[in-house]
Structures are given as C-alpha cells and as structure tokens.
C-alpha cells in the first residue's frame, strides 16, 4: 500500500515541477527587472539621493513633505499631478471600455469585411506613442491643422481647457482602442449562441440580452480590461508631455511628468522625492486594483 502511494506521490511531485519550468523564465525576469527595482525604489523614497552618490537616509521626511508641507513645491506638484492623473483616468477609462465594447458587439454581428475592420481598429495599437501623438498634433494644430481647417473653427486645442483634455483623451482612445477590442471580440464569440437564441425566442429585447446574457458571460474579461485600463491610464505620461507639455496652467501636468522631471530633469536628480511620489502612485494603483478584485469576487459568490 505504502509503496504504491509513494510511487504515486513521486509521480505527482514530478508533475508538479513541470509548471514551474513554464513560469521560471517569467519569474526570473519579474524578479530582476521588477521586484528588485521596486524594493530599491521604495528604499530610495526614504532617502535623499542624486542617482550618483550613495543615498542618504532621511526616514519619512519625503513623505511628510508630500503630505503635510503646503509651502513646498513638492506638495503642490504631487497633489496637482495626482489630481490631474485621476481626472484623466475618470474621463478616459469609461470610454476606453464602452467604445471598444460597442464596436465589438457590432463586429459580433458578422458584418461584411469584419476582419478588415478589426484590423483597422487594432492598427493604432501597434504604433509607438510618439508617432501617434505626432499624428494628432498635426490634426489639432491651430492654424495648420486638419481639424480647424476642415470645420472652419479656430480652437486652440492644446492650450485651452477643456480642449486640452479632449485632445489627450482622443489621442489615447484612438491609440488604445484595439487592445480591449480584441479581448471583447474573443469573449463575445465565446458566448453560446443557443442561449441568445433561446432568449430571443422568449422575447428578450436587445438591451435585455445585453444586460442579462452578454455582460454576465463576459464578466471576467470585462473586469480584467477595466483593471488593466485603469492601471495603464494611471501611468499616463507621453500624451500630455508631447501634446500640451502640461499646460495650460499645469492643468494637464500629470504625476508621472513631475516624477520624471525630478528624477531625470535638467538639474541634479531629486530621486528620493521622485521615488516617494512614485511609491504613493504605486500604492494607489494597487489599492484600486485590489478593491476591484474584491468587488468582482463578491459578485461571483
């Protein structure tokens, strides 16, 4: 009896090892390029550091400055940057979910040339943020741009609110549409057609089918995309940097721009303070994601 079970468990153990081979490469890279730098960054946030010398321990001073010293530039920058980042997330993420979802539902109706459309929608995702923003900079240029020219308007797209946010959000949406789109298209095609047909036979309207069949069926990919979109939009940087440069009146100056300027600006690096700010940003993103995961799990029960 013992012999058999021992052999069995040995085989089991062997089997259990195989998955580790699969995750090992990723785990290794994760460790070297993510976990270690992350802990080092957290450590740096408790120091004064210019990137070259050895960090000088200052305890919680950087955090105290960010959170309590209203006189300080860093206090102003952190809260202004955070506010602008949150504004951007709040405007951008709903569209980033709804627009691809709508398109995916339309594509799911199998129109002619479905694959071509899907390809076109996905294409911008392949470009780098630099070329995407350059394209939109040309379109929204005040006196030479396509938009003002076509519609006879004289809107100062990058220099005035709310246009500055509109320009940034449109650029981001156009760029990131494809990523969520293919996930939704895949999820929708996985829904069992017979359920939809049965519902139709029972007289369910399109909207009813959407709420009671489609949404629950793609709940998991939907939550996944919401979390991923929020995380990626919290890390917004390239678009405002290139389009508005943070203006007007630092109203599109997002947190990562401040962080980057502090750490890798024109002067000596203020890496300690930059690390403190990015640690706060990281914590915030973490809290938001965990909160969403909990919410999702509770619904499942």
């Amino acid at each position, binding site marked *: 009896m013992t012999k058999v079970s021992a052999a069995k468990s040995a085989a089991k153990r062997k089997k259990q090892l195989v998955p580790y081979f699969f995750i090992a490469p990723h785990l290794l890279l994760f460790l070297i390029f993510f976990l270690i730098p992350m802990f080092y960054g957290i450590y740096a946030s408790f120091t004064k550091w210019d990137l070259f010398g050895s960090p000088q321990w200052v305890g919680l001073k950087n955090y105290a400055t960010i959170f309590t010293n209203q006189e300080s530039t860093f206090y102003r920058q952190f809260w202004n940057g955070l506010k602008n980042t949150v504004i951007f997330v709040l405007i951008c993420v709903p569209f980033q979910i709804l627009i691809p979802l709508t398109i995916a539902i339309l594509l799911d109706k199998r129109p002619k040339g479905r694959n071509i459309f899907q390809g076109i929608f996905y294409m911008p995702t392949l470009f780098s943020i630099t070329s995407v923003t350059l394209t939109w900079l040309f379109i929204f240029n005040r006196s030479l741009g396509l938009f003002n020219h076509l519609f006879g308007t004289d809107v100062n797209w990058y220099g005035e609110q709310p246009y500055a946010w509109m320009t940034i959000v449109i650029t981001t949406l156009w760029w990131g549409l494809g990523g969520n789109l293919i996930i939704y298209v895949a999820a929708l095609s996985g829904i069992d057609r017979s359920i939809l047909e049965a519902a139709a036979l029972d007289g369910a309207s399109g909207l009813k089918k959407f709420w009671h069949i489609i949404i629950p069926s793609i709940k998991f990919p939907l939550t996944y995309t919401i979390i991923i979109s929020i995380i990626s939009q919290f890390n917004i940087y*390239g678009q405002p940097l290139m389009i508005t440069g943070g203006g007007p009146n630092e109203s599109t100056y997002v947190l990562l721009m401040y962080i980057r300027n502090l750490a890798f600006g*024109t002067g*000596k690096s*203020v890496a300690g*303070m930059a690390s403190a700010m990015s640690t706060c940003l990281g914590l915030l993103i973490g809290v938001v994601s965990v909160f969403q995961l909990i919410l999702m799990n509770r619904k499942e029960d």
Partner: protein
Amino acid sequence: MKLKKITALGMALVMAASLAACGGKSPDASGGGAAANDTSDAGDASAGDTADAGDASEEQPQVAPGAKGTIEFWTVFTGADGTSMQAMIDAYNATNPDYTVNHRAMEANDLYLKMPLAIQSGEDVPDVCINHVERVPLFQEQGFLVDYNNYLEGSAISSANYNPKAWEMTELAGGHYGIPLDVHSYALYVNMDLYEKYGNGVMDDGVLTWDEVNSVADACVADEIMPIGMAWLRVKFLASYAQMGGTLSTDGNTPDFNNETAIQVLDNWVKLREAGYTQKEGDDPWQLFLAGKVMFCPEGIWMYNNVKEAGLNAKIFDYPVFDAGTKGNWTSSHQFVLPKNDNRDDEKTKAVLDFIDFMGNNSLEWAKAGQCPAHVSIKEVAEFKDMPQAFLADENEELKIYDYKYYGYAVESLDTVLGEVLWGRMTPEEALNQAVQETKDKIEMSE
C-alpha cells in the same frame, strides 16, 4: 512521455526567448519618449534635429585604432550636426594621428546620465565629451571633470585662441574645465521683404528696441502680418533679463530672480500679447515666419538652414533690447570636457588636446552647420565672413552665458510658468515666485 517532456522544455525555452525579446524592446520604446523631451534641455543646439535621434544614438561607429589606440569621444550631436561633426572627425583621423578618434553621438539627456555613471564605475569612461556649458559647473563640483590647467602648458591650446566669453565661463574654482567648440546664440531673424514694406527703417542702427517693435506693429497687423513671434520663452526671458543686468542668483547659490527687473521683462510680453502684436496661443511662430507671415522672429542661429531651405530673404541681428546701448543674446556653448579617468595616461590626454586644437583650427564645417565656432581662426576664413552668424564671432560681453550652478532647476521651473504669463493666466509676480520657490526646494533636496 519523453516526447511530452521535450515539448514542454522546448516551449519553456521559446517563452523565455520571447520574454527576453520583450525585455529588450522596452528600452527602445522609452528612448522614443525621451527624444520628445529634448527641447527642454539646457541650450540644446540640436533641438531642431531630434527627429532622427533614435537611430543615431544606436550607432556605434568603430574606427581602426591608430598606432597607440583610440580616443573615445562622446557628443550630443545626433541630428544633422552629427554629420558635420563626423566629417570633422574623419578629417582628423585622415591625418594619421597616434590615436584615432571614435565618435559616439547620443541624446544630450543620455550623455548627462551615462557620463557620470561611467566615471563613477571607472569602466568605459570616454576620453573626451561635449557638454553644454551650463552643465559644467555642477559636474566640476561633483568632481567628474579634469582640470585642463595641468595640461595646457606645452599644448597649442591657449585662452588667446578662443572667444574670451566662452573660455571664461569654464574658469571654475581656480581651474579650467572646458574648451569651447562654439558659441550658439539666440538671435533675431528679420524677414527683409516685410521689413522693406513695414520696417520704417528701425533696423538702420542694427539693433531693434521693443519700442520700435511697437511703433511698426500696427501697420503689420493691419495687413495680417505678425510683428513678432514669441516662442521658446525660457531663453527670451534669460536674454532680456541678462541685458538688464539680472542674474539667477546674486550669491551663486540661492535663486532670487523674482525681482523688479524680471517683472519688467515679463510685463513687456504681456503688453505685446494684449496689443495683438504676437502670435495666438497654439500657433508656431517659426513655421509662420518660414511661411513669410512674420516680420521679426527671434530664434537660434543654428536654425538658419531652415531659412535657407525655405528660400526666405532673412537676416540675423542681435536679440531685441529695451535700451539700444545694452545688446545681449542668450548664448550657450558646446565645450570639450575631460572626464576623470585614472586609466588615461598623460600621453593620451595630450593627444586629446591635440585633437581639440585641430577641431578649433578646422571649424568651417561646424560653421556650416549653423554654429559660430569659438576658435579665433574662423575669423580669417573668407567663407565664414559671409555667413549670417559671423557677427557673433566678434561679440564678447553681448554673449549672455549663464553659469549658475542650478541653472537646470531654474530653467525647468521657468518653463512651466512663462507661457502662463504670456497668455495671461498668471501674473509675472506669481509666476516668478513659484519658479524661485521650486528652484529653492529642489536645491534643498539635492544638497
């Protein structure tokens, strides 16, 4: 069973490879982003050329070593100016020196990160680098640079051969830390066709005052010509401010540019905007100037090739003044600096100095790239005398070079507020106070 294992192993390998590929890609992506920031860098002469920076920085040209080896030379010339620099280096290498020069161009921001890191690690330290002059004081203080005075004796290089202002700016703490390659100023371009029509002879004395701008502006505006373009505000502020004797810091440490003089500079901008004498927000005055729709447009001398390509009849003058007696152009300078390296022997350092001297004596190519070489020999070159920036070679006190240790912090903070002042969203006082506060806070954090 075996087959399964092999497949599993194979797939794991493929995954590892593909992940590694992803890892390799990300620096490229971030590099593309960094290129966009470059206009914010201190006096980056190649600001206009950053588009093809990505490819150039990847290149690592290898030259055959000379009899004794190579000199590793890092520069910030990644655009069209990089081609001119390479041509000059090729000319030097063609003289069969003991040490051939290996040129490596990279983004300015990369160089200012990589150079200190290399010096600190002591590995792959370049033998000579190009730095913007504003960077030198801080690098000197951090102990990254070698004092030239130890080597100048017996070398052909001497202060007498160079533009005195450009030379003087790297006299630091009793030593000398940079040999100037050029001076590059932010000057005034005048569209001569429009000037004939609307100028009313205000440039007859060779210098434009702000009052004169105002006096001829209405006639331009009536014909939908923009009197003066206002972009890259940082250097415009610094030029006017220096003309009136302003400094970023009186004691060289604490910033104090929130004063009456600075306010006067900014008040003048507000008046120009309110009167409608400058561009509308969101317009690019340089593009409009090239299209022949702007009469006066301040820009860097290194942009002259744009004007030539556009076929515009334009000339370069000194930057506008408040008072005709106080000419002054914001100026920066590319300087050769010697990174500290214990492994570089004196013989090699001497070879580096010979190379720098050669570059000074053969700098016409550099002038063609739109710069004003700092070596006096250029003044004897007939071809240079006809170039629009030639007048700068004779200027000295008019060249306003800032040597504030915390210049980087100061200009960064100015960048965020100056536009707000011009477009009326901040008063000059508010803007300057915020900028000074920001500079102070950053200094405090870095000490």
